[in-house]
């Protein structure tokens, strides 16, 4: 299944082609949000990253489905 991952602010990555803030991952059935975090070597610390699946906050053990959009958002507040 294909899942789109959006990397916000400081989670964006430099690559030889430029800044990467959107990835398409081909995952095995049964994959969860934690699978993506492990694949991208992102470690959750405190409450510092919000996991937003299709516009709603989820926990790391939440299962993924084909066509999902997962946003990994370093938490900020205020404007």
């Amino acid at each position, binding site marked *: 299944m294909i899942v789109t991952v959006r990397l916000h602010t400081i989670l964006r990555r430099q690559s030889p082609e430029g800044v990467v803030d959107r990835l398409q991952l081909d995952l095995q059935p049964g994959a969860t949000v934690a699978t993506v975090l492990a694949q991208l070597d992102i470690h959750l610390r405190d409450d510092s990253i919000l996991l*937003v699946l299709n*516009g*709603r906050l989820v926990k790391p053990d939440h299962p993924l489905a084909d066509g999902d959009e997962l946003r990994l958002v*370093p938490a*900020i*507040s*205020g*404007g």
Partner: protein
Amino acid sequence: MEPRVWRVDVAKRTVTTEAVPPTRERLGGRGLIARILLDEVPPKCDPLGPLNKLIWTPGLLTGHMLPSCDRISIGGKSPLTRGVKESNAGGSTGLKMARLGIKAFLLEGDLPVDGWWLLYVSAQGGRFEAADDLAGAGVYQAAARLVDRFGTKVGLALIGPGGEMRLSGAGILNLDKDREPSRINGRGGLGALMGARRLKAIVLDDSGGERPPLADPDLYSAAQKQFVRELMAHPQTAIYRDYGTAGLVSLVDGFGGLPTRNFASGRFEGAEKISGERMRDLLQARGAPSETTHACMAGCTIRCSNRFGSQSGEKIVQPLEYETIGLVGSNLGLDDLDAIARLNWEINDLGLDTIEIGAALGLAAEAGYMSFGDFNGAMALLGEIRRGTPLGRVIGNGAVATGRALGVRRVPAVKGQALASYDPRAIKGTGVTYATSPQGADHTAGLTVRAKVDHLDPKGQAELSRTAQINVAGYDTLGACLFASFGFAKAPTAVRDLLNARYGWDVSDGILQELGLETLRLERGFNRAAGFGPQDDRLPEWMTTEPLPPHNSVFDVPDEDLDRLSE
């Protein structure tokens, strides 16, 4: 320099000072404003009449260049909400007032009938000077002329044409550390109160002032070190430094809560083009004078601000912030950061609040006075404000006035004040704050967007909002920037120790919440006496019935939950 309460009467052109009464010693900033309003201002008075007062108060911690803790609160009875109002800002005004020993600075007395004035404030007292030559001048030009006249070391608090016209969307602008008049006490129409007393500017010369004394310098130093260490180490500090508040665009759009085309959608197809990520890339590519990180006040270690320059290397505005990008960008269907930055400069120069005016322009667009996505149409309407035409004055008086005059029912406002850049149907805890805060719908009254909750679930949002509202009211009373709160959260004894070390008090660990609760209690007391009741602690009816794409959610936190917060 013993702290004093200053009383300024423009009609009589007198400045007097008096000792701080005991009931006011342990308050500052937002809490002290509520105390003074309850003591001295008839709650049902005409906000633009002689019985109202315009009040400046530095926070309890202001005066020592403690990082992010030198903010100035300004307040009074709001012409926009007709209730209690406090709006705080960075820049140099708070620090200079504290160093001049100003505990509170009250503009009061009869309304002058003609002329424009400025007040020069120094350690020797206050002195009025004629300012008729500045009448009608935009904020940027007026500030530059005042700095030319009084020197580069003074602070300024001034109004623009919007304040002079006593528009309810008018704010009061302060110099940042680069002497740009860009730090605005924006919300609630406080600039109209200054205009009503025909005071164009306050010039602050603190050259004869001094740092407020410390009762226990060693304890202060230890607490300061702990706070700064935690603040610097906090991961959010790096995000604010690199992306500023604009980092919220993608976050809030991701949650489906980004105001789009007068709150018709929570997701904007152009969100990536106006995101903090895009802004950072753009400013880095453009180079000087653009800057991705910038401090609004001396001593700030977060530096969440920025300087937005054009492709051709001219400075457009500093800073460009999230709330402006939301209300003046996606809310108007604009997906071009350069266009938003130019509108931001124009609204600042008029001395108006970008949130209130952005919401009003969204209503004007819905009514057909401009098209969504039409930068030139928005600029033309701002031109109407500058010329003082009837249509311009309607828009300058904010969202509610605009909706009523132009016949638009979908007005995004609570207690007369426009919603900030989080649609409450998608971020329901913030909707509770909009509904129940004594300040009206306000982005600084208790945001919940970073909480680890399902923002669409109405359950538990009232408690979440309540905690946020109490903490924020506490920080606003300290004079602390909301972003300092991350450092204080990791250094839980720092607030207690800093207050005890500065004032020789013996406050306990819960002092932040005690200050917050006391502030909210005073503010609700003023609003009740002004005529507000539970029926005013509600979102606009249409937000409870009109589904918001993409989640097609309505605001459905029960009224009983809202009522519990008002008690």
